[in-house]
């Protein structure tokens, strides 16, 4: 096995001179990628660097403006999703491409049998799945419904799907984003086994430590261009980091602030769908003024319920919810807003903004009933315009006018609008759920700066994030969430990543199930 493939060996996959433009934006600029048998190549880059576009071209979802894709020496016809699959390329998507209420077997065999067949052959499918599972250590019950599987198991199904189609090249898009550190280790072990069998792997990521851990070679993409290629033995984290971003990443400087009075409290609160992983039972949480409380953990462990409780969309079934010393008897988004809670929701497009309404209309959506923006049921259009102009200027939003349709803005600019709306009126509590997901480096730094500013001004900030680096950089206290439970809090720098990982995997929680975070 050649771990470091020599330049002379024939590549199994070759992308040559791929260029793709979307209007004025150049998503890929003459990108060349080669992949050898038995090697793991990492494709490293920030959000928006062009990784996803490149993979969409490889899989025929987009057609490149110029350049070619060839696998095993044969050129693939552009724009034909079937061609890549036929050529033995398999993809494990970041958001799993699985049908939840169908079985593992049906998902894996989907599209592999002739659509004209009068009978779906389960027997052949089952025996092959069992066989593949045994060979690669990817055991899953073929008759289990996807909805009943854990995230790690679902990812195994995705890999099996590719192997079932006899993929020789496997592409994984941000595969660890949804995994605990332990599950990620198991994935890496599987990948090593696959490579040992002669498969080739492209590993797409923006996390440096993972790239260093798993890959043989790294390609760095920045703003659509390939800016560097390194063998892993010849490089280190800081060099890759420097390649990845234009400016040097400086961790945000955090001034120590003395925590103030209690701004928000959950006392023995229960909420969420009974029986689901997102259910909270008897949860306690205290947020203090001038303090950022970070909630670490893999999504789907109750973060949505917790975020809903703070932002008003979820009412507690039992227990007490106290805002600024006042115990709430009813709880709704409207009440939360009138009690000074600023909210940054997880999904900008689905929850944060109304894409088909204007920037100004979106900025007043939480305050439209207040005397500031309406009188006797009539809108004060001028006031909304003025407010929009002020936010656009203060937050450096790139948008043509307050009348522009919000849908046309980039993710970063949308997030700035949401910040502008949430931070208006100096809220005493700020709920920020995945505030930087999908943003480029500049926008991430901007969001962090604003959150720290709000903290300095005395806001109690709840930061929920899957990005452990973000949690560690910003949080004064870190709490880990797993299966609806909250760990005891730890002060800045008190727990190691390893310890946090243990907690994320559900180990080391107090017996009573609910960690006390007082």
């Amino acid at each position, binding site marked *: 096995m050649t771990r470091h493939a020599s330049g002379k060996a024939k590549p199994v996959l070759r992308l040559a001179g791929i260029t793709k433009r*979307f*209007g004025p934006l150049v998503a890929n600029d003459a990108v060349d990628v080669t992949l050898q048998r038995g090697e793991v190549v990492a494709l490293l880059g920030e959000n928006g660097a062009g990784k996803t576009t490149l993979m969409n071209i490889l899989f025929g979802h987009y*057609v490149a403006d110029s350049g070619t894709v060839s696998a095993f020496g044969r050129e693939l016809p552009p*724009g034909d999703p079937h061609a890549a699959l036929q050529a033995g390329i398999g993809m494990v998507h970041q958001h799993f491409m699985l049908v939840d209420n169908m079985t593992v077997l049906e998902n894996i065999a989907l599209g592999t049998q002739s659509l004209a067949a009068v009978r779906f052959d389960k027997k052949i499918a089952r025996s092959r799945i069992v066989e593949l599972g045994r060979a690669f250590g990817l055991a899953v019950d073929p008759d289990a419904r996807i909805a009943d599987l854990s995230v790690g198991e679902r990812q195994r199904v995705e890999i099996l799907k590719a192997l079932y189609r006899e993929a020789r090249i496997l592409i994984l898009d941000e595969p660890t984003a949804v995994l605990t550190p332990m599950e990620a280790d198991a994935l890496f072990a599987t990948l090593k086994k696959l490579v040992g069998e002669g498969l080739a792997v492209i590993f797409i990521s923006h996390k440096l430590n993972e790239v260093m851990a798993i890959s043989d070679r790294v390609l760095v993409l920045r703003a659509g261009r390939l800016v560097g290629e390194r063998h892993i033995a010849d490089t280190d984290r800081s060099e890759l980091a420097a390649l990845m971003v234009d400016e040097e990443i400086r961790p945000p400087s955090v001034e120590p602030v003395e925590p103030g009075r209690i701004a928000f409290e959950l006392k023995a609160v229960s909420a969420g769908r009974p029986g689901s992983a997102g259910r909270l039972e008897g949860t306690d949480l205290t947020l203090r003024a001038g303090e950022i409380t970070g909630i670490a953990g893999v999504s789907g462990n109750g973060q949505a319920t917790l975020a809903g409780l703070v*932002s*008003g*969309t979820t009412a507690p079934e039992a227990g007490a919810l106290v805002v600024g010393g006042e115990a709430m008897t009813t709880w*709704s*988004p*409207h009440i*939360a*807003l009138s009690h000074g809670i600023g*909210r940054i*929701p997880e999904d900008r497009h*689905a*929850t*944060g*903004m*109304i*894409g*088909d*309404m204007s920037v100004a*209309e979106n900025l007043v*959506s*939480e305050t*439209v*009933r207040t005397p500031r923006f*309406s009188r006797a*049921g*009539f*809108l004060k*259009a001028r006031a909304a315009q003025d407010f929009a102009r002020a936010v656009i200027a203060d937050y450096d939003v790139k948008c043509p006018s307050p009348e522009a349709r919000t*849908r*046309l803005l980039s993710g970063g600019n949308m997030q700035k609008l949401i910040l502008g709306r949430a931070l208006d009126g100096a809220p005493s509590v700020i709920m920020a759920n995945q505030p930087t997901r999908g943003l480029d480096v500049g926008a991430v730094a901007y969001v962090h700066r604003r959150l720290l500013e709000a903290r300095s001004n005395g806001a109690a900030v709840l930061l929920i994030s899957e990005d452990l680096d973000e949690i560690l950089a910003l949080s004064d206290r870190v709490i880990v969430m797993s299966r609806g439970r909250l760990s005891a809090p730890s002060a800045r720098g008190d727990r190691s990543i390893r310890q946090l990982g243990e907690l994320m995997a559900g180990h080391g929680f107090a017996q009573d199930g609910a960690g006390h975070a007082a």
Partner: protein
Amino acid sequence: MRLEPRSDATLAHTLLFPAGAVLLTLIIAAGLVLLAGASPFSVFGLVLKGAVGSEFALLETLTRATPLIFTGLAVAVAFRARLWNIGAEAQLYIGAVVTVVLGTGILPLPGPVLVPVLIAGVVCAGGLLLLGPAYLKIRFGVDEVVTTLLMNFIILLFVSMLLEGPLKDPMGLGWPQSKRVTEDVQLPRLIRGKRLHLGFGLALISALATWVIMKKTVFGYEMRAVGHNAEAARFAGIPVNIVLMKTALLSGGLAALAGYSEVAGLKGNLTLDLSPGFGYTGIVVAMLAMLNPLGIVLSAIFVAGIFVGADAMSRSAKVPSYIADVMTATALLTMVAAIMLARYRVRWR
């Protein structure tokens, strides 16, 4: 093929594509006219003449447009909040029923008091009729398209029952029709001796009022927010369910006014053929106007013109007047496609 939002959607786009839709509709209609063995140019000429070619034709078109403005507004208001009210037909009939129940001499009130009471009753009845399906949607997740559609059949049978029972005019020679509304209730004619009545004025006022509500008020804002993204609206503290119920009341009320206007302004009494599908045509009217309340006045006149013109044409040419229904349905489909194409660019690769 894929669709990409146009960042540069210009005025030209928003005008050109709808114009193309109208043109395509005319081409298809021309094909059908040829199929019927007539010349498209002479038939279109006859339709145009029948719609706007004389004072009589023009007034007739405006008279026909009156109920369509009301039902068009009803549909536009509901669709804006993404409440799929396909039951304007039923709401129209309920409005008509209330008009004849209260307007045939039961209430001992003088005209100036009676008419506002009657209009309030009409609006409430129509609104409440749509509140049912809206509530079922909110509470049980029952699709309001199906319930409002089925409601049309139920209400028509209900009206038939009333007309053969309690509301039957004893002087009606056995026909299922109601008594005539009293002089006080009748809407005056706008021009002496012509059919155009004050209902048209009422429709124009309603269109203006609806425009103000949708564009200038908090309620209109909330309605649009709920329609475009209910989840985001809820997150922003907008009471989504209450907004939907208020929208239902407004929409149903507007549709019911069509029934009032037809009975009090034109027919004088209630029969089972009061509406030749004004409720359904209202959908076309609303979509042609892209749900804009002021645009609805124009699109209602346009659609009414096609119907009135086609009626006149079919009397002299051998082309069935159903051509008008085909044209409006075609216009609906081409227009929704045109609106989409004005906002999105189709990329084939």
